[in-house]
């Protein structure tokens, strides 16, 4: 292989010196573009544009089924709609500007006997293409922000509180139980049997439920208030189908409010894929096994969901008695420290 490259290089060098000599002899000047170069390259430009745009359209159609998997949340359907409007707007601009760019290169190729039009400015034209994008962008900003405000503000507080907790390299989920309140937790309380560092002295922790396997369930049609945090580095909880993403930051709670609209079972039908499962992925680089950090998410009908939840253990039941006492005494020192 090396030999081929070497030989190839030598051949190119020879050819270059020959062509250089030939062009010097024939009086053709320098390495400046000649008429032939201009026409060849400008034809190339137009071909590139036409074929490029055609391939783009073809690929967009071909990969349509994979792009934007069916949105399975209330806000997801709305943001998808918004995204498509945005795509339409930028698509139009994309086609017009690219076609003009490449077409002009072809149309106005160099001609010795012609002069370019001396046209240094036109204030009216410039005003138009400042104002029109401003108006279009304002419309996009307004629609985008309306959606954003809807997603981030003014939710009812009654959403079911679910904690999603990231650590290298897995996820855990905790449900707040009947009181819909998560018990306090503190990282110094973390142990093998208490992976979330829950403070058992907090009454709100008594009914908290933790998933026992690498799978979380969500009820369909029930608003959910996610609370995210992390044990070690920043993770990002990304649910592609729910169009939901929020970073999990150690030392701080982040929140996201959403409502799932399609059960896993229904989705299997929609995608015609018996093996379909929702998934929670980590989408912030978090270490060597970042790419493997995922959790299966199952969306159930509300009744199925409560049955499933009954089968999961309360966090407090999982703790051995000795550890429970230890935890409560540490927790009190900790809260003492914090109070100080």
């Amino acid at each position: 292989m090396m030999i081929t490259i070497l030989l190839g290089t030598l051949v190119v060098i020879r050819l270059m010196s020959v062509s250089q000599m030939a062009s010097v002899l024939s009086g053709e000047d320098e390495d400046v573009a000649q008429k032939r170069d201009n026409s060849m390259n400008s034809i190339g430009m137009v071909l590139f544009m036409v074929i490029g745009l055609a391939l783009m359209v073809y690929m967009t159609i071909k990969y349509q089924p994979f792009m934007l998997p069916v949105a399975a949340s209330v806000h997801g359907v709305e943001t998808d709609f918004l995204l498509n409007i945005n795509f339409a707007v930028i698509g139009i601009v994309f086609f017009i500007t690219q076609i003009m760019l490449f077409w002009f290169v072809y149309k106005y190729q160099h001609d010795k006997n012609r002069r370019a039009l001396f046209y240094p400015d036109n204030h009216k034209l410039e005003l138009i293409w400042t104002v029109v994008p401003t108006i279009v962008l304002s419309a996009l900003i307004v629609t985008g922000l309306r959606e954003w405000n809807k997603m981030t503000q003014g939710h009812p507080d009654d959403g079911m509180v679910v904690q999603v907790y990231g650590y290298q390299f897995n996820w855990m989920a905790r449900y707040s139980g009947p009181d819909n309140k998560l018990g306090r937790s503190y990282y110094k309380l973390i142990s093998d049997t208490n992976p979330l560092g829950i403070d058992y002295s907090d009454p709100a922790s008594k009914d908290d439920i933790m998933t026992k396997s690498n799978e979380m369930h969500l009820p369909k049609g029930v608003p959910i208030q996610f609370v995210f945090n992390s044990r070690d580095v920043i993770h990002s909880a990304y649910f592609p189908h729910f169009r939901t993403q929020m970073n999990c930051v150690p030392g701080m709670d982040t929140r996201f409010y959403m409502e799932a609209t399609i059960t896993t079972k229904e989705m299997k039908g929609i995608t015609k894929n018996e093996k379909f499962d929702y998934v929670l992925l980590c989408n912030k680089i978090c270490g060597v096994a970042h790419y493997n950090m995922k959790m299966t998410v199952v969306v159930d009908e509300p009744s199925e969901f409560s049955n499933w939840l009954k089968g999961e253990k309360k966090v407090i039941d999982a703790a051995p008695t000795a550890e429970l006492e230890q935890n409560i005494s540490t927790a009190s020192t900790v809260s003492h420290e914090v109070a100080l």
Partner: protein
Amino acid sequence: MEVRDNTHSGHAVAHDVHDHGHDDHHHDHHQTFITKYIFSTDHKMISKQFLVTAILMAFLAMGMSMIFRLQLAWPDETFPFLESMIGKWGKDGKLDSGFYLALVTIHGTIMVFMVLTGGLSGTFSNLLIPLQVGARDMASGMLNMLSFWFFAASSLVMFGSLFIEAGPASGGWTVYPPLSALPQAIPGSGLGMTLWLVSMVLFIVSALLGGINYVATVINLRTKGMSMTRLPLTVWAFLITAILGILSFPVLVAAALLLVFDRSMGTSFYLSDIFIGNVPLDHTGGSPILYQHLFWFLGHPEVYIVLLPALGLASEVISTMARKPIFGYKAMIGSMLVIAFLSFIVLGHHMFVTGMNPFLGSVFVFTTLLVAIPSAVKVFNYIATLWKANIVLSPAMLFAIGLVSFFITGGLTGIILGDSALDINLHDTYFVVAHFHIVMGSSAIFGMFAGVYHWFPRMYGRMMNKSLGYLHFWITIICVYGVFFPMHFIGLAGVPRRYYANTAYEGFDQLININELISVFAIIAGVAQVIFAFNFFYSIYRGRKAPQNPWNSNTLEWTAPVEHVHGNWPGPIPEVHRWPYDYSKPNAKEDFIPQTVPYSQTPESNRPGDF
């Protein structure tokens, strides 16, 4: 009249730095190899040093991308040559998943900082500012030399970090703590991360020394008649870029310094409530988000530090080769200034999903989308410049047009990502990778190629081979679109970036053929750059001798002799009488009128309002 002194001080610079009377290249008795090629204070030599270093670094970073593209396209294959190339990281021909992250990290760092900041600004600000404003050299040759050597040291440290036991930094080019602060979290956050930080601090010193020099030169050393509104757009771009760098890079030093404290002195600026390696750490009260705010205070202007010089070079190349004045000269300057200003108040759009207050998010959506307006103005101005032009398609011109095409494509997807509601789903997916590689990476590198092809005769006194230039352009533009356009599709499917393998979710398996396509294009693109490197180094020695003004350009650099002399012009510094874009002026004898030609010599083409 205030400019008259410049000629004088320009002479003074030349005198200080070089022995008088030894201007001629061939009779440099007093210049040793070391003072001429290594510790040179001549801006033209320094610019070449920057360029060659950047080319070497670019090949390194591109090689890295080819290795990880192999992994992404063929995750189940083994490549035995990897083991001989990268040793234990490619054991049995399989790329190590930790080293994959290291490759991604160092690829990004080198490309953004060493190639597109140091390589682009360092090369062309150095070459063109003195030559185009009509100065004998930079305001301070000494600082300029230091700027290059800090850059070289920074590049060396970054390169050296590849060879240490635990591997180089691997937390992504943004090195967010706590991942980058804790060696227990990832092996690369040990010595590798320390070296990364050292390298960055050296780099910032270089960028600041360079930037201060560029600003001082543009403000103080313009020749007689060179008012700010007669500066070529290149110089405007370099000036604004330098100001951006001076204002934003120090914040990155602050961010890095606090990270150093957290890493080695037990402080808690970025760390709080962490339980790792089965022990709780003592750090408490810090916020990892603080780092992100500080980082992106540089990080976003950095995008324009990369992009503006490329746009400046493209403006100059497009106007010259279209034989037509750049459309809306003042609007071009205005939009660069607006972009530069806005670049400081959009940093939050990198952080929509960090849990930042949603109201703050809305403010950043607003400011971010505002950037689209001056950007759109620039694009329309480029297109208007081409309208009814008389276009000479030199390789440089092709690359400049490619730049505009990328700027459109990548800029438009920015409108989507800047919209917080839409960003939630696309954040950190391949859609983002596609967006910034097109709008920032490819645009800027095309600007750099345009610059190299266009000003090579000015640098080396020889021409680059145009046929190889055309070949290089066509393969590159096809491959760049082939690599980055399909990434939009993968991103829309929800594939996260920085994944070693897309096996986590079975739905992603179906996308493997797109990944193969991308990798094939990436490898071809990589190989095609050898054509460029060959053309570049071959032409330095064997290229055709360049005429003084090969592109019939108006700007001052083409009035200097082909053979480099110290102080740039053997005689007095030329005076400037007009703006740089008098191309195809009606009734003029030729289709260009250099800036040095007074209006009194061109009565036939003068227009009302010209002077």
